[in-house]
């Protein structure tokens, strides 16, 4: 343990936090030097978010001390933290859906004009100034409910900057950003460091840790493991430190053996919430026994495509066929019953009922079937047994969480729960949107294995991801989406990152012309 000293913006010593009998943090230490970007690495449920929530005053530690620049402080609530110059961007956004971007950013820190009114003009100007300064492009007057998750993330970052944070905590900020945006963010982070701020960043992407941070602290099951200099440590060393054993960072799979077509999308047109065409005549086929990955930058019609595929909104024109049967304008239940399972992008909005127990969430898509219910009566025993199996199979932690609120699971474990639930439905077509968002490398490996295993069983898999690496590694066929259309498709291995990147950004593919 390092003695409290001025050189460190934050030192957290001997932090212990229990939830009931469960010990989420066990004498955890963290020392963040001024002028550095410090990353936190650990498996899902290791306690990273909890540690940061303690620092931000959202949770009170049971034991332990916090020092800022060598001075002991008490952070009783977030407003204490903000006063001390700590800003936090949470893993799951804390935005008000019905408010605009600017309103959300200034909420709680409004500038008041002399008439006692909120000075929106000035607020808007200030916000835009910061946004431009750091290159965070936003539409200040859009409602939160109308913008993509990627945009919402930017709003969250701006919110912290607007409050004059000196120490910025970013809890998995890159999980939803495109590669280009991540590069931008890294640049922004470097700028912030140069102007004397410090940053703690949580991310599961080892590449980013290497690219962005200077020092990395590794956590395992609530315990401090090690703090290493990032420059002199390799990615696989980091992964091994965190998981406790070697991890396979590339996907291991045999060539695909595609069979008959299951999903046929033809000339699909779907409107977005503003009644403008977002999917503009998209066509795509997915066959049994193959993984088709859609690569693309967020906001190019993926959300609307998913909404139409899930049955949430009607298609304006065009068809979606599953096994030759048109499903574009039926109900979600019909779509599920015709053999589609979906791992949704936003796990809190579409994936889980947070107030429900884990066991209720585990059967959310099969509670009507035997043995989970019989003649309309739920069978608690069967639900519990299935959940226990799922927890074990998908390594949802903590192991005994069957009757916990789903909202109390860590982000990554919530994701594992959803994936397990959807895969266990044994669908003919599995659609996975950002399936590994927020997962640690160990868990990503197992999700990828699961998807490949399902493919080998003859299932069709459609993968939508903003992470080019994931699409390239996992898909047998790569389709590039831009401006609501599939620009081109490639077999795995016949295309490189640059060509894809160019197409994703709207460039032409000269090779094919």
């Amino acid at each position, binding site marked *: 343990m390092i003695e409290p000293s001025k050189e460190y913006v934050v030192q957290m010593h001997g932090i212990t936090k229990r939830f009931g009998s469960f010990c989420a943090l066990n004498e955890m230490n963290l020392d963040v030097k001024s002028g550095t970007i410090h990353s936190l690495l650990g498996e899902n449920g290791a306690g990273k978010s909890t540690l940061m929530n303690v620092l931000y005053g959202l949770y009170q530690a049971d034991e332990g001390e916090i020092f800022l620049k060598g001075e002991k402080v008490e952070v009783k609530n977030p407003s204490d933290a903000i006063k001390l110059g700590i800003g936090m961007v949470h893993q799951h956004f804390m935005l008000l859906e019905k408010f605009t971007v600017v309103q959300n950013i200034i909420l709680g820190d409004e500038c008041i004009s002399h008439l006692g009114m909120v000075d929106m003009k000035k607020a808007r100007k200030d916000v835009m100034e910061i946004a431009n300064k750091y290159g965070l492009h936003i539409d200040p007057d859009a409602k939160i409910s109308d913008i993509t998750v990627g945009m919402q993330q930017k709003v969250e970052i701006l919110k912290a900057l607007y409050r004059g944070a000196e120490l910025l905590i970013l809890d998995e900020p890159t999980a939803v950003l495109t590669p280009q945006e991540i590069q931008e963010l890294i640049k922004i982070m470097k700028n912030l460091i140069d102007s004397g701020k410090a940053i703690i960043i949580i991310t599961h992407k080892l590449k980013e840790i290497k690219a962005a941070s200077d020092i990395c602290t590794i956590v395992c099951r609530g315990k401090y493991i090690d703090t290493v200099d990032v420059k002199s440590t390799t990615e696989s060393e980091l992964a091994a430190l965190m998981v406790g054993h070697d991890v396979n960072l590339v996907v291991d799979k045999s060539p695909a053996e595609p069979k008959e077509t299951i999903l046929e999308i033809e000339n699909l047109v779907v409107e977005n919430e503003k009644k403008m065409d977002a999917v503009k005549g998209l066509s795509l086929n997915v066959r049994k026994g193959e993984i088709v990955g859609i690569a693309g930058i967020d906001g190019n019609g993926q959300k609307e495509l998913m909404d139409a595929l899930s049955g949430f909104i009607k298609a304006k024109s065009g068809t979606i066929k599953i096994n030759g049967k048109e499903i574009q304008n039926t109900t979600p239940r019909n779509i599920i019953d015709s053999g589609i399972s979906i791992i949704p992008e936003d796990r809190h909005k579409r994936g889980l*009922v947070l107030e429900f127990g884990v066991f209720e969430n585990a059967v959310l898509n099969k509670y009507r079937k035997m043995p989970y*219910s019989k003649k309309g*009566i739920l069978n608690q025993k069967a639900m519990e047994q299935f959940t226990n199996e799922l927890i074990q199979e998908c390594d949802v932690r903590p192991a005994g969480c069957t009757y916990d609120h789903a909202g109390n699971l860590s982000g990554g474990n919530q994701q594992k729960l959803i994936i397990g639930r959807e895969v266990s439905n044994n669908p003919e077509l599995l659609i996975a949107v950002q399936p590994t968002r927020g997962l640690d490398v160990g868990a990503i490996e197992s999700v990828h294995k699961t998807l490949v295993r399902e493919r080998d069983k003859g299932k069709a898999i459609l993968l939508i991801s903003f992470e080019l690496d994931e699409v390239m590694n996992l898909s047998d066929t790569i389709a590039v989406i831009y401006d609501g259309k599939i620009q081109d498709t490639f077999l795995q291995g016949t295309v490189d990152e640059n060509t894809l990147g160019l197409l994703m950004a709207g460039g032409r593919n000269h090779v094919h012309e």
Partner: protein
Amino acid sequence: MYMNKIAQILKKSVFRTLAAIVLGLFVAGIILAVAGYPPLRSMLALGKGIFSSPKYVSNVLIKSTPIIFTGLSVAFAFKTGLFNIGVEGQFIVGCLASTLVGITLDLPPVIQVPLVLLAGLVAGAAYGGMIGVLKAKFGIHEVISGIMLNWIALYLSNYICILEPFRKGDSNGTYQVSEASKTLILGAWKNTDDGRNFLKGIPILGEAFLKTDVNIGFLAAVIMAILLAVLLKKTTKGFELRAVGYNKYSAEAVGIDIKKNIIDVMLISGAVAGLGAALYITGNTPHKITVLSAFEGMGINGLPVALIAGSSPVGCILSGLLFGGLMYGGQALQYEVGAPTEIINIVIGIIVFFVAIMKGVPRLLLKIPRRGGKHVK
């Protein structure tokens, strides 16, 4: 240390509610004292007005019954994310329908009673269902349509109850429902000499039966609470309803029909209120409806009952009893110490208030020792 313990105890909603009730009574005592009434004697009078005779206790049960039903109606809708303020209207049409059927038909009780109850239940369900349809199909908020339908129910009832075949003479009300419609227990028999003599011989129950309208309502309320609790917890329908209440987006994503569920909830919620209304008419004198100049508040009183119960169906029985007890025992305040019965409304308001803020108390308490802790070290 003991602050910690209190905080732990208050995390349990049952104890939180109890603490809120005690605090509510305490504040009421202060208000009484300020207004110049002796607080201790007033509280004693209140207690006596509830517990001191079998007749009082029986009357508390009877008085509580309709608000337990409307409380259940509100709580059920609440659990599934809807605010059924239209419960007043559903109660009114329930009274209306059961009265009309009770006057018109005169069949043997085994058929008559179920028919009359069914009339109230169906009317309430239809009326509640309307709110559900308006919300599901046209997106009209249930509070707006609920309030409007409450007024429509009031005037509809006022209009029909003085129409020709139902109006009694030139009174401002209907005839009584037929004898066979009544849900009194031992209703006819206790008016015979045999019955009266026999009941006089039984110490406590006898008095309760002779002096009050003992009816099946309270029993039905208990059964209804259990049914609703089972429906919510143990059935797939309840699973769906709760899922929609907590997160309709996830519910939609797993194929639950949100619109249908909204309508179902309002149908059930209205049915509960309507059944409560039918039992109220058939179990309480005067067994008829009259022209009302304002809302009776049977439905609206269901709101605080559900709130105090934290929307738990079984909790509604207890909070309904508390509410009924305060309303009935409150009369004793007036004739024993001369305090206005309005004080009871204040007590209820304060209890609801404390129930609402008690949720934050454990968090507050947990922070207190932390501050002191710094000096110890």
